């Protein structure tokens, strides 16, 4: 087995296992830490896909910034355990309403997509040697995508203001 293929299956297994454990954990702190492991595996997959820029910002921005924000909020709220009003022993597929619907929907999605992709046949091959460099990404970002890139800064500004306003403690007059 070629080392790239072995690496793909190893990273894929880590990503799937960590993601499953994220939604299986009762304690949100473990969920956040496992999600960081999942993002590390995805970063390895991006390296296999010749996308070193995306792999780097996956680690720096996602694992480094966004997940730390989550971790900070989990510790700030200090509410580790999930409160439930249903019986813990009941399997998720047997719980009422949207839970059963959601679990069934997810299973259906996997089955449909695996079936659709499995019979595709010649969707397979990547072209050889078409490596896109970080230089190409930067050039495209500041020429063809210059306007969306600037709009992004407005989005970040609005999100920052919104977060400050929403999380502000209201003064009782």
């Amino acid at each position, binding site marked *: 087995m070629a080392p790239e293929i072995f690496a793909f299956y190893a990273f894929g297994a880590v990503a*799937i296992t960590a993601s499953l454990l994220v939604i299986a954990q009762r304690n949100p702190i473990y*969920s956040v830490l496992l999600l960081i492991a999942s993002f590390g595996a995805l970063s390895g997959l991006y390296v296999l896909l010749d996308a070193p820029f995306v792999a780097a910002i996956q680690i720096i921005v996602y694992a480094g910034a966004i997940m730390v924000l989550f971790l900070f*909020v989990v510790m700030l709220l200090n509410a580790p355990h999930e409160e439930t009003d249903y019986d813990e022993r009941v399997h998720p597929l047997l719980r009422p309403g949207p839970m059963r619907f959601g679990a069934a*929907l997810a299973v259906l999605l996997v089955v449909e997509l695996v079936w659709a992709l499995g019979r595709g046949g010649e969707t397979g091959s990547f072209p050889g040697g078409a490596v896109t460099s970080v230089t190409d*990404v930067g050039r495209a970002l500041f020429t063809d995508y210059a306007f969306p890139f600037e709009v992004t800064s407005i989005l970040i500004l609005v999100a920052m203001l919104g977060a400050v306003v929403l999380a502000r403690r209201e003064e009782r007059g």
Partner: protein
Amino acid sequence: MMAPLADYLILSAILFAIGTAGVFVRRNLITILLSIEIMLNAVNLTFVAFGRALASVDGQIIVFFVMTVAAAEAAVGLAIVIALYRHRESLNPDSWTALKW
């Protein structure tokens, strides 16, 4: 020698389904936000895989914008979670049914 494109797409589909299941099955606002992040990352993997298959840089550019939107979504979402927790001392989404008719 790389794994075929279909394998990347199947992996992405499985991750997206895990995220979907998490949003519906879990009853904790923070875990629901984490599930949304799983779904966004599954879509990112699809974009990068197709960008590589088409020998185009556009897939990686779109991933860049998706990450920006994810950061904004996480900031605003967590601010809302903090504000809600101050009102009710709970992270269960079933605690807020005032707008449900």
